[in-house]
């Protein structure tokens, strides 16, 4: 009965112990980093957040004049609306394309085409955001001026299209996983009852995978909210309550990126930028949390 006996610690090979410790360390450090970053951001902003900042004004005033000599005003409403409007526009474009592509890849395409398609999607995901910003600044700018006869093409529409192109790969890959996770027996059952492939998609797969698809959309949106470089370059970067797709806007992220280099460390303005960081952190955290809960929902259902 020797084989059944529990191995004593001495019997576990040394290499295994090393590997295990290493893996554990990696896991722990990931958690430490996240908390560390949050702590740092919070510490930099906390002083002004709890002493002096008018939070009501911060969230509801459109007046962002952090460098005014006589009357500094830190209202982020225009920036918040800028972030949300450009994200919403991006999602209006990315969701139909992303989900459509995911359905195509997982249900309608031949295995060979699927591989090609996945490589293209991965390539799309690998393009650095500054390159997207550059495309927005040059190509898309010209295009918008030409098509809409606009005075300038650096607009919410421009940024929205760039963000959409960046979120599509995320949406496609997560949505495709969600569709793949639907057991094949459901497809077979529906087909054996005479359903066409389209009927299988909208009567069986979409309802069965709806949580995963929703999670895909949310994570795509979180990516858009957090994106900085491309929107900084493509949206005109001008504080403005957005009035339509052709208005120029400025986002929370772009504001931090553009101004942090200019401010004195520890100054009010510096601290406000970190408070915007906390705000962004909170928004993406909430979106990611919802996505996670939604994904958990799927696991419990099936």
């Amino acid at each position, binding site marked *: 009965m020797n084989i059944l006996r529990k191995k004593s610690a001495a019997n576990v090979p040394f290499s295994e112990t090393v590997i295990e410790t290493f893996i554990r360390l990696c896991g722990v450090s990931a958690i430490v980093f996240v908390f560390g970053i949050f702590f740092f951001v919070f510490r930099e902003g906390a002083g002004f957040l709890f002493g002096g900042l008018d939070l009501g004004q911060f969230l509801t005033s459109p007046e962002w004049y952090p460098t005014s000599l006589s009357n500094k005003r830190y209202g982020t409403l225009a920036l918040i609306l800028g972030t949300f409007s450009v994200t919403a526009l991006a999602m209006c474009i990315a969701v139909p394309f992303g989900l459509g592509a995911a359905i195509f890849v997982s249900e309608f395409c031949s*295995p060979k085409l699927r591989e090609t398609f996945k490589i293209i999607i991965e390539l799309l995901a690998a393009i650095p955001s500054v390159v997207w910003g550059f495309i927005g600044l040059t190509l898309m700018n010209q295009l918008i001026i030409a098509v809409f006869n606009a005075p300038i093409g650096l607009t919410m529409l421009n940024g929205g299209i760039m963000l959409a192109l960046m979120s599509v790969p995320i949406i496609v890959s997560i949505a495709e996983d969600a569709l793949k996770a639907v057991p094949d*027996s*459901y*497809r*077979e*059952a*529906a*087909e*054996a*009852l*005479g*359903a*066409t492939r389209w*009927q299988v998609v909208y*009567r*069986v797969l979409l*309802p*069965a995978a709806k949580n995963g698809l929703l999670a895909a959309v949310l994570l795509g949106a979180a990516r858009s909210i957090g994106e900085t470089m491309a929107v900084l370059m493509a949206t005109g970067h001008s504080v403005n309550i957005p009035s339509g797709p052709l208005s120029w806007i400025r986002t929370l992220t772009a504001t931090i990126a553009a101004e942090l280099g200019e401010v004195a460390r520890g100054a009010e303005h510096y601290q406000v930028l970190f408070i915007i960081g906390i705000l962004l952190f909170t928004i993406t955290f909430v979106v990611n949390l919802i996505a996670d809960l939604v994904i958990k929902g799927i696991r419990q*259902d*099936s």
Partner: protein
Amino acid sequence: MNHSIETENLSLWYGDFQALIDVSVKIPDGQITSLIGPSGCGKTTLLRCFNRVNERYGNVTTEGKIEILGKNIYDPDVSLPELRKAVGMVFQRPNPLPISVYENILFGLRIHSPMRSITRTESDQIVEEALTSVFLWEDLKDKLKVRATSLQLEQQQKLCIARLLPLKPKIILMDEPCSALDAKGTLAVEELMEILAGTYTFLIVTHNMAQARRVSEECIFMFLGELIEHRETQALFEDPKHEKTADYVQMRYG
């Protein structure tokens, strides 16, 4: 006698593995026919030819002729949805869809009729009739909104039979429908088949020799992709003509 299903020299390959070899068979109308044989001999494969669900796998090649209700199902003018409407299938593992009991029953009708053409009163009645025919109405009438995948296995399998009925199929193919059920569930499904036979032609794969004897008028024995013997059930069991049939029946049935 009329035949619902007729095949001539039907051969089928998965890639280059031949799973069916020159199967020629005639399944009589309105009766229960059983299909027996050791695992891996091609029973499921043969059954899946009759509603062409085999084609879901990319690597399948079929040769020979299959006529269902007098029509060659490989004719170019055959519509797959119509074929599958006429030839219902019950799978080995109960596979209700992850929607409500009510919607499971109506699924077939909904995909075969124009949007919103079924009124609420009609659909209520259809669901009640279908569930009543499989003796589930009493159990499930208060659970119509429940997700079908959360029912007991036996109820799921009966539901899978019930959802075929609103489509008024001519033929019902069953692939070991009782393998996930206990003795009581098995008897219930058999009783159901006996009541429904006449209206429907049944072809049932089973590993249970007693079941084949109880329910079927004719019985087919397959071995390694070939049809070995097809006769009246009683005769096949009591006086098998073929040695392999005799061995198999002996072994499985004592």
